[in-house]
């Protein structure tokens, strides 16, 4: 994490195993929206109505696009790596709910974050983290500019928070259609995702 040495502060990092134990022990207050990102405990942005509406609309559109055999999760944990357990706003994973009764999914074919105040975090820090994990298709639904940012093709880049970033980024406005990599036969109007 070479790019992170400039911190004024360095906080104690937690592993994913420690984080899951903290949850089991009930150390966090119920309802606290916490995710483990690169060993740091991050608090998710408070959900305003447009944010949650965007999540529901995106989940419905992706359920229709992917069809049977895929599970669309909203704000569910992903066992990303040894120091990360994010809860992306929407994630598409293979299979059915019972497949993840014992362990969280690890590699969504599509990961979506809905961003208002968290735009910089979602693009840079989470983008770098998801790229490092090799997630092939990462979308940031940008409510500020009312566009969909589509990130693909992870590449190494030591100047980023986790040493990786997406090599391709495309910005689609409300007139565009988007096709998930994991559902090549489908096409979703961007307007259908936005609140």
């Amino acid at each position, binding site marked *: 994490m070479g790019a992170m040495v*400039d*911190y004024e*502060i*360095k906080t*104690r990092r*937690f592993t994913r195993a420690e984080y899951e134990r903290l949850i089991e*022990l009930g150390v966090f207050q119920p309802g606290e929206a916490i995710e483990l990102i690169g060993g740091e405990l991050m608090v*998710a942005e408070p959900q305003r109505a447009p944010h949650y509406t965007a999540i529901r609309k995106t989940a419905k559109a992706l359920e229709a696009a992917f069809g049977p055999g895929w599970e669309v999760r909203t704000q569910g944990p992903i066992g990303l790596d040894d120091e990360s357990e994010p809860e992306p706003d929407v994630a598409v994973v293979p299979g059915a709910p019972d497949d993840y009764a014992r362990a969280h999914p690890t590699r969504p074919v599509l990961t979506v974050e809905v961003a208002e105040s968290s735009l910089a975090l979602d693009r840079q820090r989470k983008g770098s983290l998801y790229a490092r994990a090799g997630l092939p298709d990462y979308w940031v639904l940008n409510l500020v500019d009312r566009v969909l940012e589509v990130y693909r093709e992870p590449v190494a880049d030591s100047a980023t928070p986790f040493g990786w970033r997406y090599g391709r980024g495309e910005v689609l406005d409300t007139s565009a259609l988007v096709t998930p990599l994991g559902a090549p036969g489908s096409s979703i109007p961007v307007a259908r995702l936005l609140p």
Partner: protein
Amino acid sequence: MNQAERTGLHRWTRHEYERLMDHGFLDEDDPVELLDGLVLVKEPQHSRHRTAVLLAARALERAFGEGWFVQTQSPIVLDDRSEPEPDVCVVRGSPRDYVDAHPTRPALVVEVAQSGLRLARGRKARAYARARIADYWIVNLIDRVLEVHRAPARPGPARRHWGYAAIETLGADATLTPLAAPSAGVRVADLLP
């Protein structure tokens, strides 16, 4: 990565922090402290840092004398979200007075800073000022000076705006008097390794 992007960090309460200890996630020897709800990893203890801590402890024991004791790198309680472990602090009474609870209002707090200078001047100074610590010294190992912070004040309305209104930088040839030990003189040279 600037501070603004880190505002989303989870803030621990002191109660939660203590549960981390109870459950073995942290132990007393871990080089961490709770400041503003963040579990901070402390500056690595180089031999110069350690030497400065011991020098300050010795000088302050001499300056304060009876009725006070000096603790090094031990916890104090500032508020619900802060339980820092200052390098040196001077506390009224005797160690037995604090057998049930950490001291809350030391008469003098000293931090020895090298790589942690920004933290000592920034977030820590704000937290100590907010807790009305009247006398806060930073032994600045980079410039070999003592930075004396006094007169905690809050110019703005928000919590984060607490700070020290009087900050003085003293060179090695200076002598100063701790606020709570008005008849004592401490030579800055005696604090520098």
